């Protein structure tokens, strides 16, 4: 499976994609740096807003979308899936390899700029830890979701972008964490971030009151939801792969 992992990694990682997302990450860091040099009292909550409005709902899912829809989707589109499909390997193993290859790229591409943003803004270690956990889990959920999407849907990138922009970045913010937000990955990622860092997001809360202590009982449901999304994503993608018409 190592050779399949390497081939999937090389298939999805192109110079253009890497450069585009490195530039996107650099822009995020530039904004974070500007928050730091401004040196004002509310800079940490502004950093949170930057992460809440740009990194988690937009940058992260777009990175996950581009790389995960291409991992199996590109193979299906260009006809090279046959070289994997017609081998006596369990479909779920192929899906897990695809996920591992995608996460190998998306985790550094998302965590790197986010860590740098947190550091540049002079945020606490607690924030650093919170953003790491929430970004990693959201990454896993998005990648599991979009891998099957890329396999099944033609023009998955276009439809996926529409989903990210319309749903994750817009509709999910309308009801302050209730209603549509409850079925967005962003909501659970931000909930983890909020609880672990003891910061409240202005986009999800009408008050600026911050929780005073970490209550892990509040964090676990969100963690479990994101892990469940990953599991369901793997199972559904495995079923789709076994039923796939291969060119």
């Amino acid at each position, binding site marked *: 499976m190592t050779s399949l992992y390497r*081939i999937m990694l090389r298939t999805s990682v192109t110079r253009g994609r890497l450069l585009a997302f490195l530039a996107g990450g650099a822009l995020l860091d530039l904004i974070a740096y500007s928050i730091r040099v401004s040196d004002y009292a509310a800079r940490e909550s502004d950093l949170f807003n930057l992460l809440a409005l740009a990194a988690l709902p937009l940058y992260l899912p777009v990175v996950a979308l581009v790389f995960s829809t291409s991992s199996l989707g590109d193979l299906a589109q260009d006809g090279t899936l046959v070289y994997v499909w017609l081998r006596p390997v369990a479909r779920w193993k192929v899906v897990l390899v695809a996920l591992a290859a995608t996460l190998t790229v998306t985790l550094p591409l998302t965590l790197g700029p986010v860590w740098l943003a947190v550091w540049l803004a002079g945020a606490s270690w607690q924030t650093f830890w919170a953003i790491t956990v929430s970004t990693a889990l959201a990454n896993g959920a998005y990648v599991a979701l979009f891998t099957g999407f890329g396999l099944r849907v033609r023009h998955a990138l276009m439809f996926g972008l529409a989903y990210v922009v319309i749903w994750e970045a817009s509709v999910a913010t309308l009801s302050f964490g209730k209603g549509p937000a409850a079925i967005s990955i962003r909501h659970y990622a931000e909930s983890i971030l909020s609880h672990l860092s003891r910061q409240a997001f202005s986009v999800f809360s009408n008050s600026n009151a911050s929780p005073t202590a970490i209550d892990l009982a509040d964090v676990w449901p969100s963690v479990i939801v994101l892990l469940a999304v990953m599991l369901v994503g793997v199972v559904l993608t495995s079923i789709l792969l076994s039923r796939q018409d291969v060119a």
Partner: protein
Amino acid sequence: MTENGRATIEIKNVAKWFGEVVALSGITATIQTGLTSLLGPNGAGKSSMIRIICGLTSPSQGTVRVIGQDPRTSVEIRKVIGLVPQQERLPPGVNAVEFVSMAAALQGMHDPQGAARKAIETVELDPNDRRHLSSYSKGMRQRVKIAQAIVHDPRILILDEPLNGLDPRQRSRMAQLFIRLATEDRCVLVSSHVLEEVQELSSTVLVLAEGKLAAEGDFHAIRQLLDDRPHRIRLRCSDPLALASGLMGSGSVSGVQTSGDDAIVIDTSAVTQFRRRLPRLTQELGLHLLEVAPLDDDLESVFRYLVARRSP
């Protein structure tokens, strides 16, 4: 029939359609151990047939059994089958050994690298060539595809237009390889749209045309069938009417039509006799023969004839 009875692939009343396009219709055939060629023009349904046999897609109707199992769902079949697909695309950013090693590893081989190098040498490529596959010529890529299909020594080898893009020498060498593999108690199915390629393989032939099985049997029988079909030939000469009259009297043609001022079109089912008779007749009549042009010698016409002949 089971594999012990030498039938490896059984196709029963298989049809495949994509929306309103019928790719295959009512195909019933048995493919035995040994070399079988699937002959037909482009768009005849060969690749659809191969995809169904390999389980890459389901038939819309009918059943396919490979060593008695459904190829769509059986993991066992994937252990013993090797496929050279028609599409040229190979994964980017990898060299031949890496790509073929992946195939060997996914087949569960103990030494994927060693098996890959051996398979690459078998198709006469250099396993030490570290260049990416994207820099390979079409013929080299084709041979890499063959290498990944044979790396695990499959009992069933299916090759979709494997000789495309190969130069004549490579084509001959690869054809010899397929013949050798077939003699080693394997089922080897080779598709082609080129009659001469099938002739070189000299195998059992299934002829597909317009999604239907147009003919099947030994290559020589198929060749004879093709030669004996009615031929339509245009003849230009100095006095076409005199030639028409002479030909009708010779009994070697079944119909004559005029075609312009200096030509006639004849129909004949005895083409060999006609070829022998024509020069003698023009000499006897003192005519100048300007052109002899077969009007239906392209493969499409040949296959159309076979389909029409088989239709009830």
